[in-house]
């Protein structure tokens, strides 16, 4: 097995375990067949095209398999059994990751109060409400939503999505918020 085949085999981990147990060997064999034929052709670009197509194909089909698995397990016959099963599948690591925005805000508030002060001190107002606090509250609500989604997720993939799509943007917003407040204040002067 050469490096390309090994790399493809490693990338197949993006698919759910249940799907891999059924089709991983066939997918590896088929990919190897494609590479063999590409190498046998006289086209120097054939191998990169096969690799690129397989990679893009993996990016588009693996998430769908996870979502199909989510849909299939969303109609429990025995809620208690599924609750236990869901807890078993949920990764504590991803749930902890989604709580990072809260940790970040607390750490910044304790270790760098000067950094976060602009959020509280004379912020510009939105409809009478403090701008910085509104944005902060909204961000932390989104972070809380991420924690909830990760906690209730039945697969690590969904928990990871919650972290990437909710927690990471919130952390970026928390870090940038004081600077944004200062910029807005300066523009208002």
């Amino acid at each position: 097995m050469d490096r390309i085949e090994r790399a493809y085999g490693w990338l197949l981990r993006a698919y759910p375990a249940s799907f891999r147990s059924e089709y991983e060997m066939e997918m590896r064999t088929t990919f190897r067949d494609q590479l063999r034929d590409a190498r046998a052709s006289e086209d120097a670009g054939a191998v990169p095209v096969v690799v690129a197509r397989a990679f893009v194909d993996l990016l588009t089909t693996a998430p769908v398999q996870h979502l199909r698995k989510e849909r299939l397990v969303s109609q429990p016959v025995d809620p208690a059994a599924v609750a236990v099963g869901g807890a078993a599948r949920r990764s504590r690591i991803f749930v902890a990751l989604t709580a990072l925005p809260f940790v970040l805000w607390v750490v910044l508030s304790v270790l760098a109060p000067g950094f976060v002060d602009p959020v509280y001190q004379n912020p510009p107002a939105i409809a009478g409400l403090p701008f910085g606090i509104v944005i902060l509250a909204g961000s932390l609500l989104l972070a809380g939503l991420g924690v909830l989604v990760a906690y209730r997720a039945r697969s690590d993939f969904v928990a990871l999505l919650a972290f990437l799509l909710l927690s990471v943007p919130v952390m970026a917003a928390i870090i940038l918020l004081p600077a944004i407040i200062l910029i807005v204040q300066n523009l208002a002067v």
Partner: protein
Amino acid sequence: MSTSPPLSSAALHILVAIGPDERHGYAIMRQVEAITDGAIRLAPGTLYTTIKRLLETGLIEELDERPDPGLDDERRRYYRLTPGGRAVVAAEIHRLDRLTAAARPWAAGGRT
């Protein structure tokens, strides 16, 4: 007239590629490429996720693993259409025929 929803493009091409024969995954890939003149080249992900769905819906069935004498000694899983799969393909062809007939007068420059 069929009341089943249209198949996805990948599913239809896979069913047509299998046809009356028994084919393994890579042979299905090559057949799809052949019948579309290279316009459609399936990758393993699309191929096997679609095969999984076709198996679940009973349109194809799995056969015993055996090597392909034209390739190597690797044992490969073969697939063939079920009677239900053949019926779905027939219905899909009928649907596409109607679509083609509706479009031909103006899409082909008015030629019949």
